[in-house]
């Protein structure tokens, strides 16, 4: 039977305790330190009844002139559409098994090792969900798929992407997430190299930071993530920060303790397998938060070489 209590799995080591209540937030914290996309997206807590959640949409609203008269002609109404984009959370799971021989022989804190690996795995899964949304960049009217045709530079990526987003009334600021293999292009870009001269910290002097942040140039923050999808070429993404992409999640209630948490984590001793098992579950969905379909996210630009 599953337990949700502390499990002392190696008394001789003294510190080999696996406490779900402690491990769970530690996994989430480790993940949060590594994630690139999550701080750039809208987080929506969808806990409660229901399976599908609409993100209301409207086109770029425009103001017009109005002349009061005896026979009033009301302005044309511009409606919000509640059915265009929806979030449908689905379960994501990861099970870890620690055999008895590993438990008996380890000289390190298993809890720390498990937390680190689980946190990194969770961060990758979160980022991969966002990176897969590159396909939502419109292919026409106007085309949001920029092919630089050479090195990815400030001039042919950031400026070009910003111009498209501005045209679409996309809320500022914007951000760009590139694959690490594209970072060298930016490192030799004149404007990035000389960023310190215009008051921005240099990547070279500061190094990269948690969350993949590289540099900020004229209201555009540049990040790197190895979860950028490789399909023919790397599909870098530029979008409105905290507006273009959405992450919806439902908290899960533990059937034994009754606690509700974003990440549900159980630890059991499986006597048949002679192993400690850790089962992690979360319930989430990633979607574009703008546009009228999965190929019309007008606040997103895809950049490739």
């Amino acid at each position, binding site marked *: 039977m599953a337990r949700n209590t*502390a499990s002392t799995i190696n008394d001789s080591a003294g510190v080999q305790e696996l406490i779900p*209540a402690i491990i*769970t*937030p*530690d996994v989430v*914290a480790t993940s949060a330190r590594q994630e690139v996309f999550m*701080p750039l997206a809208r987080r929506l807590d969808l806990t409660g009844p229901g399976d599908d959640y609409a993100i209301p949409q409207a086109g770029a609203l425009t103001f017009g002139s109005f002349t009061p008269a005896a026979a009033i002609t009301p302005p044309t109404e511009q409606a919000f559409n509640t059915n265009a984009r929806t979030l449908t959370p689905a379960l994501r799971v990861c099970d870890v098994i620690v055999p008895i021989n590993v438990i008996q022989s380890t000289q390190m804190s298993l809890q720390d090792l498990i937390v680190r690996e689980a946190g990194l795995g969770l961060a990758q899964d979160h980022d991969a969900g966002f990176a897969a949304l590159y396909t939502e960049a419109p292919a026409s009217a106007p085309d949001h798929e920029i092919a630089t045709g050479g090195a990815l530079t400030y001039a042919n990526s950031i400026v070009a992407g910003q111009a498209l987003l501005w045209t679409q009334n996309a809320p500022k600021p914007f951000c760009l997430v590139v694959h690490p293999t594209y970072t060298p292009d930016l490192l030799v870009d004149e404007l990035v190299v000389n960023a310190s001269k215009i008051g921005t910290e240099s990547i070279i002097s500061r190094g990269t930071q948690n969350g993949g942040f590289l540099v900020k140039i004229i209201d555009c923050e540049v990040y790197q993530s190895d979860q950028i999808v490789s399909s023919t070429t790397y599909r870098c993404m530029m979008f409105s920060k905290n507006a273009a992409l959405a992450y919806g999640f439902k908290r899960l209630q533990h059937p034994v303790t009754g606690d509700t948490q974003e990440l549900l984590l159980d630890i059991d001793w499986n006597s048949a397998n002679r192993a400690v098992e850790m089962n992690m579950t979360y319930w989430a969905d990633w979607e574009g938060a703008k546009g009228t379909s999965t190929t019309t996210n007008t606040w997103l630009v895809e950049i490739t070489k």
Partner: protein
Amino acid sequence: MADEPKTDGTTAVSGSPTQSEKQATGTGNDKPAVVPMDRFEGVVAERNREKDRVTALQKQLQDLTDQHKTDDEKRLDQLVTERYGPRLKRLDSLEQRLTTERDELVTKIPQEHRGMLVLNESVPIEDQIQQARSVISFLGQSKPGSFAGGGSPGNGGARTYTKEQFQMWQNLPTLGKLKEYDEQKAEMTAAYREKRIIGIT
């Protein structure tokens, strides 16, 4: 103080209660210009008379305005003063007390944790106080500047936490508050192991 001879042969009167002096300039006649005390007092008295006259005129204007008010306006003024005057005073007093209470609570929260509060006019003062109380409760604050180990009587100095406080700490990473999470991790882990979380262990 004794009078001292000056370069031009005149005698300066220092500290005299009857005259006012101006300092000599660096150019021209270096003899200090002396304003007779009676002239000085005359000017001051004239200014005071003008000030009194302005005050009298303002009062006269107010009286004339009051005389020309309609009976309805006078009744309205009286009604407002009688009905709402005391209430407004009580409200002012209450707001002052709430503001003082909020400020006292905020001083109990270490500077690095005050970012958890929203203290501006968009938030009612009662909500600001509630926020501060929640943060203090969560941080286990027993005295200014200390956290984790403030202690409560009867349990050997180790602090106990409610289930809600523990869950709030668990949720800090999802709120992006990693610094606060790290700061409290050792204490919360110890509290869990030592069964100091009421309602969980």
